[in-house]
């Protein structure tokens, strides 16, 4: 077990390093990050000065080393627009994004797990058909449109819920549903098919044969195995949720990291953009590490592979 944890930990650190490299390279893809930051009216002299101030006239590997050392110390540079440390800005916005993503994931799981279980166990029923329809539709409809439709129906027409912003009671409801619909669809679909697979396994028949109650077989034998692929999708969709916050937060004017990233892009605030991508990607990598450990707890066979 310890060997497994150490190995996963090393992989996680390698991933974090590669994430940092990718984020660093983002700015150098076009060759000159300075040109991304300045307005079109800047003179050559301005550009040269800024380049020197930011240390961008040095060789790339040295710049990356510098970037990495600073990043490890929690220094991701300063936002050009807000003139504040980029990391501080990202951290300030983090609670809003965390609140939104967790609420979305919660909604997704609360709906998807019963839906997946029921549709697998009562295959061909209307509940099954409904789950299938909703999961295709939920996976196909763009989140930003769902968000806008929810605003039209619940905020503009019915005046039931606040359309945008954060802080009012219930202002979390619409954005969380919007963001949660996609993972909901995926998780329900995966759970249904993995349940169907597990239901016909020998060990399930044995469990029934030795007289276990239906509920015990379901919880101890079927779900424990059927949930493994669900953990995988949950982990993967969590990444897309974190990315999806960019769109959802933009639709609902939710003051989170996603909107910060978008603002940074619109304002050509490159250090801030780098910081948001780096922080979000690192969180995702760490979540994946935790979920890897969760797998092993769920299914000790995985450790041996």
């Amino acid at each position, binding site marked *: 077990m310890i060997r497994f944890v150490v190995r996963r930990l090393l992989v996680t650190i390698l991933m974090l390093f590669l994430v940092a490299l990718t984020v660093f390279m983002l700015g150098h893809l076009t060759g000159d990050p300075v040109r991304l930051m300045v307005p079109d009216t800047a003179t050559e002299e301005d550009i040269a000065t800024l380049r020197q101030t930011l240390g961008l006239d040095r060789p790339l590997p040295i710049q990356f080393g510098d970037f990495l050392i600073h990043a490890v110390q929690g220094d991701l540079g300063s936002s050009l627009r807000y003139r504040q440390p980029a990391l501080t800005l990202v951290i300030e916005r983090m609670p809003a994004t965390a609140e939104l993503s967790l609420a979305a994931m919660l909604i997704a799981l609360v709906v998807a797990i019963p839906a997946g279980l029921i549709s697998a166990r009562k295959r061909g029923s209307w509940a099954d058909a409904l789950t299938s329809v909703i999961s295709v*539709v939920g996976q196909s409809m*763009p989140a930003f449109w769902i968000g806008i439709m929810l605003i*039209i129906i619940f905020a503009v027409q019915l005046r039931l819920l606040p359309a945008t912003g954060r802080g009012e009671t219930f202002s979390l409801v619409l954005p969380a549903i919007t963001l949660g619909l996609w993972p909901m669809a995926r998780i329900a679909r995966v759970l249904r098919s993995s349940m169907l697979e597990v239901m016909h396994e020998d060990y399930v028949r044995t469990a029934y044969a030795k007289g276990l109650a239906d509920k015990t077989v379901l919880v101890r034998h079927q779900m424990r195995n059927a949930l493994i692929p669900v953990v995988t999708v949950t982990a993967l969709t969590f990444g897309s949720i974190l*990315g999806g916050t960019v*769109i959802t937060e933009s639709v609902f004017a939710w003051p989170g990291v996603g909107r910060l990233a978008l603002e940074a892009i619109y304002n050509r605030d490159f250090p801030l953009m780098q910081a948001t991508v780096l922080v979000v990607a690192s969180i995702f990598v760490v979540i994946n590490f935790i979920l890897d450990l969760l797998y092993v707890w769920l299914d000790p066979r995985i450790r041996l592979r």
Partner: protein
Amino acid sequence: MTVRNDALPARIIGSRRGGAIRFPLQRLLASPAVLLSFGAIAVVVIAAIGAHVLAPYDPLAQNLDERLGPPLWAGGDAAHVLGTDQLGRDVLSRLMYGARVSLVIGFMAVLVSGVLGIGIGIVSGFYGGLTDEVLMRLGDLRLALPFVLLVISVIAVFGPSLTNIVVVLGLTGWVAYARVVRAEVLSMREREFIIAARAIGATNLRLMFRHILPNVVASGIVIGSLELANVIVLEASLSFLGLGVQPPTPSWGNMLGEARDYLISNFWLATLPGIAISLTAISVNLVGDWLRDVLDPHLKM
């Protein structure tokens, strides 16, 4: 989608050789959802290809006297069946030209990522070892980066344009193909026909192109058809955020983005492009599911 297939007896799904042609056709006719999807896709394709002939108006022609006209059924006039936008442009015409943008970007991006992904999958599975390790870790890295955020930051760096969107979506979408193809190649590598081909002196390149590639193309097509829906939605999202297709060129995404300011005065403006995107994506997904059942019932996505 899966209801239908699971409802079929296992022997039908299992018998690929015997009924490869008859059963899918039967299944197609037996499934109204798939038929409807094909119909919807046909409508979108015809609208896209024939936009310059079929569209009633120039999608860019403004008429400020007729701004924000509602669709016909909501009290609008028959000249603009789906109404007009904030600049008095005909919504129907813009939707038709928008279909062109969505389909072109969708197909091109899927083509790029499909070719790249299948190539990487074959190389990775065929050579194994360090090559495999490096390529698959690259795939993990791509999956570890929040996708939408990654794409918009790359677009922000390079600037939004049709080519850039295709390149970015194409270059980032390869992992799904590579993983599936790699797994297939791994199981194929030790099969008799590969060993036999090797024994008569086929080079690695020949093995990969002539013997392995034809056997993984089916999976590639299935993944591609499902990815197409994702790419269409993703392009719409980018354009919605102002990082995709730039106005005045109409795309479903930027039409929706512009309509955001008129949710109270004319909500149809935001509703119609969304319906277009959703119906297209749902249809493509259903057809993709159907294709998977026909071509490769055992494919795990």
